[in-house]
Every structure is written in structure tokens, then in C-alpha cells.
């Protein structure tokens, strides 16, 4: 019996020839991530272990992105703790505000996480790096603090579920719609403890940005990790960024999957998740008269260049509805700068959007876009739990950037064709292919 890509990466990091689902292994880590919310706890636990030095100051990534730029005095104290620890330990990959980005967009962009890596992070969306053909998963502060001392951690080898998506995607449909569709199909615990592997022609045809949106939300189905076999697009993405060797793993043809789901891309409409679970998914065409107070475009799920291009393509020459606040958060400074160069930021600002420096703020109801009682938002983020974006009686709907941008114009949740003509998609697609 062959192995899946996930099993191969875990075996390689455990120093074993073979691993099997259910087995607990001690694994070497290639990188560890923490942010301003989780690092303070990790640092405290690291000190309690009694270790003086982190296992490798080049392999620890510290990103103040949650309540940064500092929201208030207690958040400023947490960011300060993170910063002081980084300087004390000589941590090379500490990212200060102004050079910072949302962690799960930043680390791949900087070439810090690579194909074949095993990464753990004190943030649940650490599963994002699976889009590069890496194994990555979220842990808590204590697990991370101990790994900072030991350079390794324990993992239970997950069984894998495969999602094969073939066919051609419909206009304005991107990675986010695919993953929302899948979560709607299997539920928020449909992949509990399991590795989700995404394959098929429609996945191979996606950009890296869209692939990151998919693996980012594996956790929203309870998944331990999400992964896509690396190909020529992955190679093109990492070639210019990597500063150390990396390895492409592929699943064996006779690898064992707990289940294989076959999906047809044409059947995946633009998706919207209704409150209060990411699995509460409908096609946008089934939604009527849901008026909005706020629209958020950004986050570790959809704050990348492709997302901003889609939003700008729809908002070009349009105005945000008078009753709606549109907030746009490019995920990293590099994405922000590129969006400036391409004129996307100008388009967004002219439409009436507020464009902010990278931060997780609004996604988790931290700052810069918190909802009042009874308010309703549509966001390209990843969670719509009760109180996620503010008051426990506020509501969050989730979608991709196309529906979000169109809805900001309409003032209610609508598909793009309600605000832009079909030529808009044709022109956008032609531009993408250039």
C-alpha cells in the first residue's frame, strides 16, 4: 500500500520509512509561527520548560498581526512582549508593523514555508501552507512554546479524505467558492482530525492565491490540514522566494483514502455562508434581500492580489452603496504595493472603500471594523460564528471577493451580474490570461 503526500511528509520528519493513520509520531519541525495573541503564552511556556535558547532563531516566525497596529494598551503590551522576545533570542523572522502582513499570506510570500515542509503555528489557519504541498497545522500556545525549545512536536498521523474537482469553473467563481461548497457538503466537523487533499483539473487550473484560500479553510471543516500536490505553478511561486532547499512530494497511486469525493466544477455556483456556521452555505442565487451594513474584503483567506483584482474589476466606475461601509485590507505590504502599482487601490478608494494597512482586526472582531448590535456584514473572511465580528447579536455572512464587491455596491447580497455586465468578466479573464 502506498502513502499519501501527508503521510510521506510526516514519515520524512519522523525519520521513518512509513507511517500509518492513527500512529503518534515525534516529528522535527521546519518552522514555527506565533502572533501577538498566541506568542505571549508560548513564550511563558517556553521559559517554564527551562530552555535558555530557542532551537533555531531562523525557524521561528513572529508576526504581530491580530491586534496590531496596537489597538489599545493591553494589546500594545502583548506586541511589546513579542518584540522583546524576538530581539532577546535573535529571531530573524520578526515582522514589524510597516513590514508586516497577515501571517498566512506573509510566510509563503517571504519563502519561509516551502513544499515538503512540516510547519506548526499557534493559529488555527496555519493549515494554509498546504497549498504549497507542505504539511501545516494549528496548535495552541503551550504546544508552540515547547516546540520552540525542542524543535519538534508530537502528531497523530491523520487519515486523508480526497476531493477531486474536475471541469471548468463558472464566471467569478474562485477558490473560496470551492472550499465553501465543500464545507457545506461535509459540515464543520466533516473532516475532524483528518487531512483534506484537493486534486483534479479545476484545482490545478487555480492560481496559487485561490489555492491558499482553499487550504486556509480546511480547519473550518474540522480538518487537521489541507494539502494540494505541488506542480509547475507551485514551482514558479517558490523558485524566486526560497532561500533553502525544498522537496515536492506526491501521493502514490495506491495511497489509502478514507473517502474520495468527486465534484464537477460547473455545479459550483458563487457561494455564501449564512450565520452562524461556515457550513451554512447557499448559492448566492438562493439569497434574497439580505441588506448589509458593512462589507470586508481581506484576511488570510482572501486578502491576496487576485482577490483585490477581482474586487477592483467589479468596483471600477461604481460607487459603494450609501448605507454600506466597505473595508479593504490587503494581506501584506507587498500585495498593497503591487495593488497600488496596478491602480487597484485608486479604483477601490474612488468607489468609496476604506483601504487599511494589513491586519486581522475586523475578521475576529478585534478592531477596525467591529459590528454593533443588530448589524450585518458580508466578509471574505473565514468564520461567521456568533459574535465573531463584534456584538453577539450581529451577523456575519461569508463569500468570495466577487460577491462581496458586488454586494457593497447593491447594499444587499447579490451576484456580480446584478451590478456589472457579462463583458466585465470576459475582460477580466482576458487580462488574467495575459
Amino acid at each position, binding site marked *: 500500500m502506498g502513502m499519501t503526500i501527508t503521510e510521506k511528509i510526516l514519515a520524512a520528519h519522523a525519520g521513518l520509512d512509513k507511517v500509518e493513520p492513527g500512529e503518534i509520531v515525534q516529528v522535527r519541525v521546519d518552522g514555527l509561527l506565533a502572533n501577538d495573541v*498566541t506568542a505571549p*503564552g508560548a513564550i511563558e511556556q517556553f521559559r517554564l*520548560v527551562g530552555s535558555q535558547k530557542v532551537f533555531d532563531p531562523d525557524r521561528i516566525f513572529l508576526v504581530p498581526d491580530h491586534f496590531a497596529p496596537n489597538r489599545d494598551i*493591553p494589546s500594545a503590551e502583548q506586541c511589546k512582549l513579542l518584540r522583546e522576545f524576538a530581539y532577546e533570542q535573535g529571531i530573524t523572522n520578526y515582522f514589524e508593523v510597516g513590514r508586516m502582513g497577515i501571517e498566512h499570506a506573509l510566510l509563503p510570500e517571504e519563502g519561509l514555508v516551502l513544499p515538503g515542509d512540516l510547519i506548526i503555528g499557534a493559529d488555527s489557519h496555519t493549515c494554509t501552507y498546504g497549498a504549497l504541498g507542505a504539511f501545516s497545522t494549528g496548535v*495552541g*500556545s503551550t*504546544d508552540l512554546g515547547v516546540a520552540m525549545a525542542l524543535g519538534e512536536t508530537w502528531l497523530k498521523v491523520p487519515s486523508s479524505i480526497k476531493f477531486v474537482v474536475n471541469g471548468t469553473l463558472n464566471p467569478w467563481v474562485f477558490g473560496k467558492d470551492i472550499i465553501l461548497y465543500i464545507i457545506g457538503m461535509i459540515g464543520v466537523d466533516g473532516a*475532524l482530525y483528518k487531512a483534506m487533499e484537493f486534486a483534479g483539473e479545476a484545482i490545478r487550473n487555480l492560481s496559487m492565491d485561490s489555492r491558499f484560500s482553499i487550504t486556509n479553510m480546511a480547519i473550518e471543516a474540522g480538518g487537521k490540514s489541507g494539502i494540494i500536490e505541488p506542480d509547475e505553478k507551485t514551482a514558479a511561486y517558490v523558485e524566486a522566494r526560497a532561500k533553502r532547499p525544498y522537496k515536492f512530494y506526491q501521493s502514490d497511486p495506491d495511497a489509502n483514502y478514507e473517502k474520495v469525493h468527486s465534484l464537477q466544477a460547473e455545479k459550483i455556483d458563487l457561494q455564501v455562508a449564512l450565520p452562524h456556521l461556515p457550513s451554512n452555505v447557499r448559492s448566492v442565487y438562493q439569497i434574497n434581500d439580505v441588506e448589509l451594513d458593512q462589507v470586508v474584503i481581506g484576511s488570510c483567506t482572501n486578502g491576496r492580489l487576485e482577490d483585490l483584482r477581482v474586487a477592483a474589476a467589479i468596483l471600477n466606475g461604481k460607487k459603494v452603496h450609501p448605507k454600506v461601509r466597505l473595508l479593504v485590507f490587503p494581506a501584506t505590504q507587498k500585495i498593497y504595493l503591487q495593488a497600488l502599482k496596478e491602480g487597484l487601490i485608486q479604483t477601490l478608494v474612488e468607489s468609496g472603500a476604506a483601504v487599511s494597512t494589513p491586519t486581522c482586526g475586523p475578521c475576529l*472582531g478585534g478592531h477596525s471594523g467591529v459590528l454593533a448590535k443588530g448589524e450585518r456584514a458580508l466578509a471574505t473572511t473565514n468564520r461567521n460564528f456568533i459574535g465573531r465580528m463584534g456584538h453577539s447579536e450581529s451577523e456575519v455572512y461569508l463569500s468570495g471577493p466577487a460577491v462581496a464587491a458586488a454586494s457593497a455596491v447593491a447594499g444587499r447580497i447579490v451576484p456580480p451580474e446584478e451590478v456589472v455586465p457579462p463583458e466585465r468578466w470576459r475582460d477580466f479573464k482576458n487580462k488574467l490570461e495575459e
Partner: protein
Amino acid sequence: MVFEGQVLKVGKNIDTDVIIPARYLVTFDPLELSVHCFEGLGEDFRAKLKPGSILVAEENFGCGSSREHAPIAIKGCGISCVIASSFARIFYRNAINIGLPIVECPEFVKEVQEGDKVAVSLLEGKITNLKSGKTYQAKPFPPFLVEIIRAGGLVNWAKKRLKKEEK
């Protein structure tokens, strides 16, 4: 490790934003966090949170964020143990690491009523409903996790390992 207490029930997919909203994540102090624990379930539910209670949840308890503040806040409320049909995986690891006793037993969750008095023996995975007298066998912890629990948590386990390596 044996716990006895009255059952307080919650449903399925109780997420970490409901357990402790992100805006309060500026401390790791159990008591400070406990003030906002389960805010998303409303004040009527919060009034029922009594020290020594045993929280019983349906599937996927603790889904969502990796915040360790979630089990810390529950511990801060004085909840002695959480029994669920299933746990989200990061919450499961975090609970063990910070020493919040957790047990997985779907059969028990199905049959128990709110307010029942129950006894839980953690490492044996034995749950007794003291009202009905019925006993249940929970899903056992893998041997490696028993090692961590016996060591008194992951940090103590790692300390021992580092000492061994020094020798």
C-alpha cells in the same frame, strides 16, 4: 483523578468565539478570562455556570481558533471536567496541555440530563451517572497522552525530556 459534579449541557459545534470572544485575548489569566466565558451563549446560560460543574457538550466542542484562552477560561470558571461526543482537535490538545480534564463519550452525552450528578474517573475513562447508576466507558487516551497527563502536562513532560538529554 476523579471528579464529581452536576451536569450543565450545551449543544454541538460550540466554537471558541462563543467560549471566549477574540476581543478579550489580551491576557492568559484564568479568572480575567472567565468573566467573559460563554458570553456568546447569553446571560441566562452564564448564570448557570457554577464552580465544580461538569460541562457536557455534543459534537465538535471547541471548534475554530487555536486560542488556548478557551480551555483556560473554562477552567477559570471552575468547570471541573468537559465531557463531549467529540472535540475539535486543537481544543483537545490545548485542554490536555493546560490541564483541563476532558473525556470523549457520545453514549453518555446522549443519555445524560441537565442537573444529573455524575462522577468521572479521568485516566480510566469511567463515567458514572450517580442518579441512574449507569456507568459508561469513554474513549481511552492513547498511551503517549497518558504519559503527558501523568507528567502533569506537556511542559513538565518536556522538562523531564530535556533533563534526560543533558545526562
